[in-house]
C-alpha cells in the first residue's frame, strides 16, 4: 500500500518490546488541555524512559478522533474526558479499560463565562438566553446542565448552543450570552476580550468531579500488562510531582512548550487537580451523573473498567 512511502508519512514499523515491557513504543492520543502537563512532565523527566517506554503523543482536536484512532489501533493509549470512555463502553463498540487518572475539577478551573459588561447576575438570568456548551450528552453539556438545574434554572427555557468551546469563544457577545469554558479558554477570553468568569459550575454536587483520565482497550491491557503498569507508574509519579511542583518553574514552561499556550497566557490559567489515584469510587460519580442526566441509559460499574495500578514495590502488600 502507499503508506509504505516514507515521504507520505506513513507510520514506521512497530518495534517489539524490551526486557521491561511487552511493547516499548506506545502512541498516546492527547488533546490541547492543560491537565496534560503531567503527561509532558513525565516525558521531560524521563519517567517513561525509566520504565522502558518510548511515548509518542498524537495530538487530536477532539476525543472522538482519538477513540477512532484507538479503535483503528493507531494509538495504544488515549487521554480523554471521562464521559467519552463511558459513552463508548456503553455503546459497546470497544471494550475499554481505564489505566491512569489525570485530573479532577479544582475551583475556578472551569467557568461559565459572560462577555464584558454582561447584565447576567444570577444563574436564573440564563433563562431566555443563549448558552454555549458542547454537543448533547458530552462533557460540558452534562456539566453545565447539571449545574444549571442545581441552581433552579429551567433547562427548557435556555437556548443551548452546542457548538463547542471554540465556537462559543467566537460567539461570546455575538449571539452567545454565556458559555461553559475550561482553561486555557478562560484565560484567553479574559485576556483577549475582557470576558468574565461569572460562575464556577464545578461546585455543589459537581465539586471535585473527576474530569479526565487515560485508557486503553481491554485487549491491549490484557496483552501488555507490563507496558500498562509501566505507564501507570510513570504517570502516577508525574501527577504527584505536578500537583506539588512550583507552578512558574515547572508547569508554565510545559504549557508553553507542549500545550502551545502563549507565554503571557500560561501563568493566567487555573490548573485542575492532578490525580494519580485512579480510585473507582471517585470516578464512579461520572457515569452516575451521566445516567442521571440521561446521557447513559444503563449504569456502568467503574470498578470493572479499571486496571488497578501496580504500585511496584508494594506488590506483595496488596
Amino acid at each position, binding site marked *: *500500500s*502507499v*503508506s509504505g*512511502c516514507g*515521504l*507520505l*508519512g*506513513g*507510520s514506521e514499523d512497530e518495534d517489539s518490546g524490551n526486557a521491561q515491557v511487552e511493547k516499548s513504543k506506545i502512541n498516546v492520543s492527547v*488533546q*490541547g488541555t492543560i491537565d496534560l502537563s503531567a503527561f509532558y512532565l513525565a516525558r521531560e523527566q524521563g519517567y517513561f524512559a525509566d520504565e522502558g517506554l518510548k511515548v509518542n503523543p*498524537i*495530538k*487530536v*482536536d477532539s476525543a*472522538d*478522533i482519538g477513540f*477512532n*484512532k484507538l*479503535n*483503528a*489501533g*493507531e494509538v495504544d493509549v488515549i487521554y480523554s474526558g471521562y464521559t467519552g470512555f463511558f459513552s463508548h463502553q456503553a455503546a459497546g463498540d470497544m471494550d475499554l479499560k481505564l489505566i491512569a487518572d489525570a485530573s479532577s475539577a479544582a475551583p475556578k478551573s472551569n467557568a461559565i463565562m459572560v462577555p464584558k459588561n454582561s447584565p447576567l447576575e444570577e444563574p436564573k438570568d440564563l433563562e431566555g438566553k443563549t448558552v454555549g456548551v458542547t454537543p448533547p450528552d458530552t462533557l460540558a453539556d452534562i456539566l453545565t446542565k447539571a449545574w444549571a438545574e442545581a441552581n433552579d434554572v429551567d433547562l427548557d427555557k435556555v437556548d443551548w448552543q452546542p457548538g463547542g468551546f*471554540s465556537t462559543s*469563544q*467566537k460567539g461570546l457577545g455575538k449571539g452567545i450570552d454565556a458559555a461553559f469554558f475550561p482553561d*486555557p*479558554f478562560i484565560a*484567553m477570553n479574559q485576556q*483577549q*476580550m475582557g470576558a468574565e468568569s461569572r460562575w464556577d459550575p464545578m461546585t455543589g454536587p459537581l465539586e471535585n468531579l473527576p474530569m479526565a483520565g487515560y485508557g486503553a482497550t481491554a485487549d491491549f491491557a490484557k496483552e501488555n500488562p507490563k507496558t500498562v503498569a509501566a505507564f501507570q507508574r510513570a504517570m502516577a509519579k508525574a501527577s504527584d510531582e505536578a500537583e506539588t511542583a512550583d507552578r512558574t518553574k515547572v508547569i508554565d514552561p510545559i504549557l508553553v512548550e507542549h*500545550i*502551545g*499556550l*502563549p507565554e503571557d*497566557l500560561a501563568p493566567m490559567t487555573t490548573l485542575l487537580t492532578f490525580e494519580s489515584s485512579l480510585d473507582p469510587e471517585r470516578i464512579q460519580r461520572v457515569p452516575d451523573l451521566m445516567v442521571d442526566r440521561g446521557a447513559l441509559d444503563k449504569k456502568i460499574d467503574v470498578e470493572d473498567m479499571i486496571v488497578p495500578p501496580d504500585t511496584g514495590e508494594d506488590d506483595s502488600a496488596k
Partner: protein
Amino acid sequence: MLKFAKGLTGLLGFFLLWEITVQAGVLPDYWVPPASEVTTTFVSLLGDAEFLRGVVATLLAWLIALGVAIGIGVPAGLVLGSVPALQSAARALIEFLRPIPAVALIPLVMVTIGSGPDAKITLAVYAAVWPILFNTIYAFGEIDPVLLDSARATGANRRQSLTWVALPHAAPFIFTGIRVAASIALIAVISVEYVAASEIGLGRYILEGGMNNGHLDQVMAGTVLAGLAGWAINSALVGSGRRLFRWADTEERAAR
C-alpha cells in the same frame, strides 16, 4: 510575464485589503491575525524542515489522489456519457453517494483504513472524482453529432470513436474539471489531515496551530500556503492546457 504581474497585483490587493480590515479594527486581530503577521510566520516556516516535510507529504498525497481521480473519472465519464442505459443505472448510486460528505465518513474511514496516507488519498479521490466525471459527461452531451457520425463512418468502432473523437472534443472541458478537482483534492487532503489528525501534513500543522486557538498566525500561514499551492498547481495546469488545447483556444482563433 506581464500577465503574471497582473495576477500578482490582484493577489497583493487581496492581502492589502485583509491587512487594512484587521488594522482598522473591523476584524479582531486575535481571531484574524493581520496579513503582515501571517507573512512573517509564513516566511519563517519556509525554513522549518519539519513543516516542509509535512507539506511534501500533503502534496504527494494530493498528486496521487488527483491521478487516481483522473484515472477513474475520465473513463467512467466517457462510458457513462455514451451509454445512456448505464448512465441511468449508475446515476442513482452516484447521485446518492455524492452529497454524503467526506467529513461524515471520516470515523468510518479511520476505523477501516486508519488516518494515514491511504485514508486521505481515498477521501480526496472520493471528493475529486466528481468534477472530472461530471464535466466529462457534460462535454460529451455537447458534442456535435456530426463529428461522432464522421468517426463512425470511417469505420471507427465505439471505443475508437470514444478515444479519438469524444475525448479530444471533451478534453478542454474535462481539463476544467481537472482544475476544479485539483483544488478540491487539495482541500480534501488538508481537511482530512486536519480533522482526522494525520501524523504528518499541512492540515496536521494547521490543526496544531488552531488547538486552543493559540497560534492563529500559524493556522493562517498554513491556509495561505494551501492557497498558494493551489495557485501554483492551477498555473501549471493552465500552462500545460494551453499547450495541449491550442486548437480550442478561442483567443488563438480570434487572432486573425
